[in-house]
């Protein structure tokens, strides 16, 4: 029978499980994200560098292609921590751009029209709402970061001579863990920005500002006051420190894993607090 003829009937059948219910939000958020052409275009653009890196891996593993060239060139073609750190630096910039484009539309449309009361009057908590929204963003950023990174690593491992994998497994761990930390931070920044800034353009600018302006300020503080605590407010340097440490690469001067972790933990705490303050079903004015 046609719906308009049937009339309303109260549903009394079986209900979906809690996890199934929770997956509605990231699925909906992902549907919204993937319908934005500019996000899709940037995601496609972010694949260019991994493709170039794949070409590089192919060339570096086919010695016959550059057999006549000198030793310096062959050293340049090595696939090692420097190669993967360079890959991560470039892709992290793309991930920040993606977060700046996609992030602002995650929470502000719900907040703008007081839609949060509708979500939180359903069996879903604030934490679950945040994690569900974050999941869509994490998946998007993963497509530009650790997933292509892992593909490159597997490609290199399969092409390189025996023993390369055993000698370089830390690169894989560093790549994945390092990007997870980065993706989590970028997602948190994007969500916090979306929660506090209504206008998409400005919210996007805030995301970019967090990573690039804050890093500039950190460097400036270190240079002007001749201190090292400026690194605490430098997300790029803090993340880079973690990447180097996990990959077993040489740490940048004046940076330790402890400082990097403290810095990232502080940033995550501030961002989580910002989200907690904002994501409430109703405003209480006491």
């Amino acid at each position, binding site marked *: 029978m046609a*719906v*308009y003829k*049937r*009339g*309303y*009937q*109260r*549903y*009394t*059948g*079986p*209900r*979906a499980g*809690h996890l*199934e*219910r929770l997956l*509605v*939000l990231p699925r*909906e958020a992902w549907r*919204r994200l993937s319908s934005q052409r500019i996000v899709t275009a940037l995601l496609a653009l972010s694949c260019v560098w991994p493709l170039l890196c794949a070409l590089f891996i192919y060339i570096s593993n086919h010695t016959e292609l550059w057999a006549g060239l000198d030793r310096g060139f062959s050293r340049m073609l090595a696939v090692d921590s420097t190669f993967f750190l360079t890959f991560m630096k470039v892709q992290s910039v793309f991930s920040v751009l993606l977060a700046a484009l996609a992030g602002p539309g995650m929470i502000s*449309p*719900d907040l*703008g*029209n*007081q*839609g*949060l*009361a*509708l*979500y*939180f*009057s*359903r*069996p*879903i908590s604030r934490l679950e709402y945040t994690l569900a929204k974050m999941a869509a963003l994490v998946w998007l950023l993963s497509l530009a970061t650790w997933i292509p990174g892992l593909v490159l690593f597997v490609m290199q491992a399969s092409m390189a001579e025996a023993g390369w994998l055993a000698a370089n497994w830390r690169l894989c761990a560093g790549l994945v863990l390092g990007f997870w930390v980065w993706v989590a931070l970028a997602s948190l920044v994007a969500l916090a920005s979306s929660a506090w800034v209504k206008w998409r353009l400005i919210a996007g600018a805030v995301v970019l500002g967090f990573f690039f302006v804050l890093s500039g300020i950190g460097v400036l503080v270190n240079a002007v006051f001749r201190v090292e605590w400026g690194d605490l407010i430098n997300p790029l340097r803090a993340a880079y420190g973690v990447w180097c440490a996990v990959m077993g690469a040489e740490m940048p001067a004046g940076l330790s894993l402890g400082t990097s972790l403290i810095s990232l933990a502080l940033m995550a705490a501030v961002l989580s607090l910002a989200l907690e303050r904002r994501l409430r*079903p*109703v405003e*209480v004015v*006491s």
Partner: protein
Amino acid sequence: MPPQPAVELEDLHVTLGRREILHGISCRLGISGSGRAIGLLGPNGAGKSTLIRTLLGFHAPSSGRARVLGFDCQKERRRVLERIGYMPETDSFIASMTGVEFLRVMGALSGLPEEIALEKAHETLFHVGLGEARYRTLGTYSLGMRQLARLAQAIVHGPELVILDEPTNGLDPAARRRMLELIRQMKDEHGMSVIVCSHLLADVEQVCDEVMILKDGRMIHHADLEAERRENRRFVELEVEGESAGFAAALAELGAAGVEEAPGRFRIVLPLDFEMVRLWKLAADQGLSIRRLTQRRDTLEEIFMKAMGLLRQTPGEAASSREVSAHGGL
């Protein structure tokens, strides 16, 4: 299993910031699954919204307990929220979603399986009268349409209890009638318990079976409107013309108690299920003609005013009553 109250409050205190908003409310409202509507009344700042938000688990009680459909609002919040639908007072919507998308997502979040959520979204939108507008984004809806969309999202998943916060606010008369009709259908045809929080006493009187009146965070009155209406039908003022000496005694034979206040003027308390036609017949038998018959009926406004302390009693025992013309009959 004994019937469960829809809402049960036990010495409920709620403090927001440093200010206590609800001061120890205790009551049992409605009966789960009975299709009763409960009106929540009170002046601004009485604590109505705070109470609703506490039932939804938005605010934690500082002491005492609130239970909805037998579940604790804090400890079993998820089980409570699975069973209720909430229509907020504020203009809450997701502007970029179409009506169908909005309801599908809200239904799925409330536990409807995906394919059923879509079906119910269409069904509910037609039910509330938004069928033709269901593919339009909510941002393009008028205020009245958004109000209906908010009602639709509250009932799309077929909740046992629906909480409506100021459902008729800002609606034109036709839309208001439609909204009240939908509320009546929810309780009468679908057996949902409904809590209506409203400033409009006429709306509450039309659809509610019981009312709870709050003032300064305290419950000052809880009335079963249906029982009060039944009760008030028993009090009658009668003015007759003719020789009325034996009328009071004749009334007693019918089981009614009557006092002659002045010659030809009686105040009568009728027994339950007394048919008014017997009174007319008695007067005719006694050779009396009825000049005036007034049946007292407290309106909700009077109940509210009395509860607020603005009215000591029903004015003049007659001014507020529904006068029934002797010629108009009953």
